[in-house]
C-alpha cells in the first residue's frame, strides 16, 4: 500500500487538508478534502514539485554586521533546503556586497544561485 499523503492548501484562510489517494502504482487517483478547483491544482503541483524559496544568512566576520541575509534566486526542492543551509555556514564572502549580488552560483546544484538580500558595504572601522 502506498502511504497516504495529506497536503494543506495555502490558497486561502480555509487551509483545506487534502488527502491524496494513490493507486497501486503510486499514481494519483484522486484528491479528498479540497473545497475548490484552485486548491486541487495547488495540491497536484505541490505533489509533483514541492519547491520553496530558501532564505538564510551567511557569516561575514564583520563584528558590526556579522550576518548577511541571502535567498535562493529560484525556488528549490524542499529536500535540498538542509544541504544548502550547511553551505551557508561554509561560504566566505568579502565586502562590498550589494543586494542582488550572487554569493554562490548554482548552490548545491539546485539550479538556483544564493543571492544577497541586503547591502554590506564592509566595515567602516573598528568598534
Amino acid at each position, binding site marked *: 500500500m502506498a502511504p497516504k499523503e495529506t497536503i*494543506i492548501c495555502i490558497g486561502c*484562510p480555509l487551509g483545506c487538508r487534502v488527502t491524496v489517494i494513490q493507486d497501486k502504482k503510486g499514481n494519483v487517483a484522486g484528491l479528498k478534502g479540497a473545497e475548490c478547483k484552485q486548491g486541487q491544482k495547488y495540491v497536484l503541483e505541490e505533489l509533483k514539485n514541492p519547491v*520553496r524559496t530558501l532564505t538564510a544568512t551567511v557569516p561575514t566576520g564583520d563584528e558590526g554586521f556579522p550576518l548577511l*541575509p541571502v535567498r535562493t534566486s529560484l525556488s528549490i526542492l524542499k529536500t535540498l533546503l538542509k544541504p544548502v543551509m550547511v553551505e551557508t555556514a561554509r561560504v566566505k564572502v568579502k565586502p562590498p556586497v550589494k543586494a542582488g549580488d550572487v554569493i554562490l552560483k548554482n548552490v548545491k546544484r539546485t539550479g538556483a544561485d544564493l543571492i544577497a538580500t541586503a547591502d554590506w558595504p564592509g566595515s567602516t572601522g573598528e568598534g
Partner: protein
Amino acid sequence: MASRVDVAVIGAGPAGLAAAIAAREQGAEKVLIIERAEQLGGLLPQCIHNGFGLLYFEQDMTGPEYEKAFIAKAMSLGVETRLETMVIDLDAERGITAVSRKHGYMRFKPGAVVLAMGCRERSRGAVGIPGTRPAGVLTAGTCQRFVNIEGYMPGTRYVVLGSGDIGMIMARRLTLEGAKVEAVVEIMPWPGGLIRNEVQCLHDFGIPLLLESTVTFIHGEERVEGVTVCRVDAERRPVEGTEKSYPCDCLLVSAGLIPENELSRKAGVELDPVTGGPVVDQNRQTSVPGVFAGGNVVQVHDLVDWVSWEAEAAGRAAARFADKGELKAAAGVRVMPGDNIKYVVPHTISGREDVTLHMRVTQPGLKATVKAGGILSKRFRSVRPSEMVVLDLKGEALKEAGLKGELVVDCEMRGGG
C-alpha cells in the same frame, strides 16, 4: 532643531518609512524620522524570510529587500533621520522631547506628528507562565534578532509557545540553523498565524503543532531544562492528567503582539481597548489634533503591505495638516463592529470618500458574508481571527446611502469553524 520640522515621524519601521515618504510626496518640506534603534527598517532587517511585498510590489520579497526599497525612496526624497534617538515625551500640543548620544537633549514642536512605533510582543511575565525563572525564556522576536542580526543562538532544543507568525517563522529558522524544535504549542483551537506559515514553517519540517494546549510549567534552575505541556478545556484551563513533558533548553514565547502606545498615552491620545491602538478617523488622525498614526501602532496587521498603505494615509494627512494647521473633519460616521466582528479600523469615516475598512472576526467560520450596512456585502469561503478581513467602500456608494451617525459591520456565517 534648527529649522522647523513639518512632519515628525516616530519610528523608522515600514510604517514610519512609508509615512515619511507619503508626507514628502504630499508636499511637506522637512520630514524627520526619529528612530530608537541603530538602523532604519524597524524589525524588517531581522525578518530575513520572504513573503513581503506580494500586494504592494506584486513581488515576493524578503524583509531586507522590502525595507531597502522604502529606504532608497525616502533618501531620494530628502527625508531626514535621527537614529539611536529615543522620544521620551510627546505632549498634547505635539511637543516632542527626544535624546540621543550624538545630538543630546532635543525639544521641538513639529507641524504634525505621525505615530509609527509599531508593536511589541507579549512577554513571559505578561503571559504568566508558571514555573521557575531560568535563562532561556525569551520572545520569538528577541530570538529572531539574536539569530539573524546579532549572530547568536539562545539554545539548541526549543519549544515555542504560541503559533503567531513570528513563532512559526522562528521554528523554521531555528530548524534550518540546525536546532531542534520539539513543538509549537497553541492554546486556541486554531493556529495564530497565516496558513502559509503553518504549512511552510511547521508542516514542511515535521514540527508538531499542538492545538488547545499550553505550557503549564517551566523547569530548570540556571537554564531551562524542559517544559510541561497540558491540553486545555473549552475555558482554556489546563486539564489535569494531560501533562506531557518536553525536554528543551529554550522556550520561545510568541503569544501575541501589543501596539506600542506609551507615547500616545503621554500625549493623551484616546486608545481603543480592543485593538490596543489609537482611535483614528479616515485620515488616521487620532483624538489629538495633528497627531496621526499608522501601521501596527494602530492595529496589528498580518501583512506588511497593509502597514505601508495605512501609514501612507497617515503621512499624507499629516502633511496636509502641517500645511494648513487643520484638517477637514473625516469623522462624520462611526464604524461599529457588529455580529462576529471584533473591531473595525478606522473607527470613524467621512461617509463621502472611498475608504478601506480593516477588521478581524471573533470566531472562525465557513461561507461567511461580511456586510457593511446595506452598502456592500462581500463573501468569503472562510474567515479566521488570525487573517484580517479587508473591505473597500466606494465614496459614491457611501454618499448614496446617506449614512447618519453610524455604519455597522456584521459577519454572517453559514458554517462553523
